[in-house]
Every structure is written in C-alpha cells, then in structure tokens.
C-alpha cells in the first residue's frame, strides 16, 4: 500500500533530487558544447538531456502530489569538485561522473526500498533508474577506451581519486539523504 508525502523531510528530499538533476544537466550541457570526440559528444548530449528530463519528472511528481519544490541551497556536484579537485581533462570529467552516477543510482535504489513509498515517487524513481544504468555503462566504456590515450594507471588513479572523494562527500552531506530515507520507513501507510 502506498502513502502520500511524508511532510517536509520528504518534500526536501524530492526537491534535492530535482535540484541535483538540474545541476547535472547544467554540468553536462556545458561539456556537451565543447567536447569534440564524436562518440563522447553523442553520449554526453544524451546524458545531458536525460538529466534535464529527470528534473522535469521530479517537478511532475511533486506537482502530482500537490507540493512545490523547496529552495535547496546546494547539491553534491560542487562538493565532489571540491573534494576530488576540479576535473582537469576529459578523462577526469568521466571519472568524476562515474563516481557521481554510482552514488545517485545507490541513493535512488535505497529510496525505492521504503515499503510505504508513495506511488508517484516510486514510479519516478524506477523511471529514472533505467537511465542511470545506461549512464554508468557508457561512462565506464568510455573510460576503458581512454586507457589507450591516458594510460591504464592514470585512468585507474582518477577513478580511485573520485571514488575516495565520493566517500568523503557522502559522509559530509549525503548521509543526510540516508537518514531521511530511513526515517520514512517509520511512517505507517495511510
């Protein structure tokens, strides 16, 4: 049985998802304008469009539930760049993207496990998670292809650096996400 929105905590969470998708779209949109490798340009443009679409789906979801997005001060993309350093080249852009996309997929998957989740939220999470799988797939493949240019060791080092940054950012900021999702488990279905 699905319930409704669980107050301001869940409203904040959906607003946070929406804002993060907007930030992702802005980041990938900027890069899609300047990266020239045809294969990366193609996939990055689709990735940009996906993130933009996801922010729309979160807006639609909140509208369906009768709430408006809250003002969310910051999302975790900036925190990633701060913790791991701004990506200096295309390979590092993909490395930070891989870490970020894995974290997003994990966070969305955790939210779907809330037993009494509202139907519009579940539908939106499941819809977006289909795209997230492809995001991880294309970025992983592109990074493997870059080993020929950047060297296997440098690619592995960049992936590790941003994975480490991801853990640091998670401990500082994203743990709040998990706390909210866990708190939702205590709500009873309406």
């Amino acid at each position, binding site marked *: 049985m699905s319930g409704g929105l669980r107050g301001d905590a869940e409203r904040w969470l959906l607003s946070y998802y929406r804002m993060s998708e907007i930030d992702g779209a*802005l*980041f990938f949109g*900027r*890069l899609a*304008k*300047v*990266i*020239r490798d045809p294969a990366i340009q193609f996939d990055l443009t689709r990735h940009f469009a996906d993130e933009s679409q996801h922010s729309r789906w979160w807006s639609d979801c909140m509208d369906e539930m009768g709430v408006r997005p809250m003002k969310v001060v910051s999302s975790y*993309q*900036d925190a990633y*760049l701060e913790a791991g*350093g*701004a*990506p*200096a*080249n*295309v390979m*590092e*852009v993909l490395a930070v993207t891989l870490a970020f996309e894995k974290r997003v997929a994990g966070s969305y998957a955790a939210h779907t496990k809330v037993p009494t989740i509202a139907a519009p939220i579940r539908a939106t999470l499941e819809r977006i998670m289909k795209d997230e799988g492809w995001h991880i797939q294309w970025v992983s493949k592109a990074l493997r292809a870059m080993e020929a240019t950047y060297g296997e060791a440098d690619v592995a080092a960049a992936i590790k650096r941003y994975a480490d940054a991801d853990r640091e950012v998670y401990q500082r900021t994203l743990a709040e996400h998990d706390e909210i999702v866990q708190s939702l488990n205590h709500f009873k279905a309406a």
Partner: protein
Amino acid sequence: MPAIDAATVRHRIAETLQLPLAKLTDDRLLTDVVAESFAMVEMVIDLQEEFGIRLDQAELKQLKTVADLTALVAAKTAA
C-alpha cells in the same frame, strides 16, 4: 598544431564563456573571472579541445591569474 600566443588564448576564453575581453586582463585572478565551478571546467576542457593539448590537476593548481593560464596553454602548444 602551430604554437599560439596568449592573446589567442584570451580571445578563446572570452568567446567560450561570453565574457568581455576587457575583463581578461593578465593580472585578474581566475577565480574572479570564472567564479562558477562548472564554467571553470568548461573553460579548461574547451582550451584543451580547441588547441589540442592536455592539462592535469597539478598544472591547474598552480594557476592563479589569467596570465598564468594563457602562458601555460601557449607553452603547451609550443612544446
């Protein structure tokens, strides 16, 4: 690719970020010129794509001013 000069780099930055060229004086801090982190990444990637060079984090961390960046890019194209 032939070596390019600092002025060419400056023009490219202005064009990519749609900034007035007058704002890109040599002594301006990069963090003042490009305050937003996503724009900074876009600029750095664009310079590499446009001039066929590669930069790394150690090099970027040394940069403070517009002159530092234009000199680095110009030197890379001359190498």
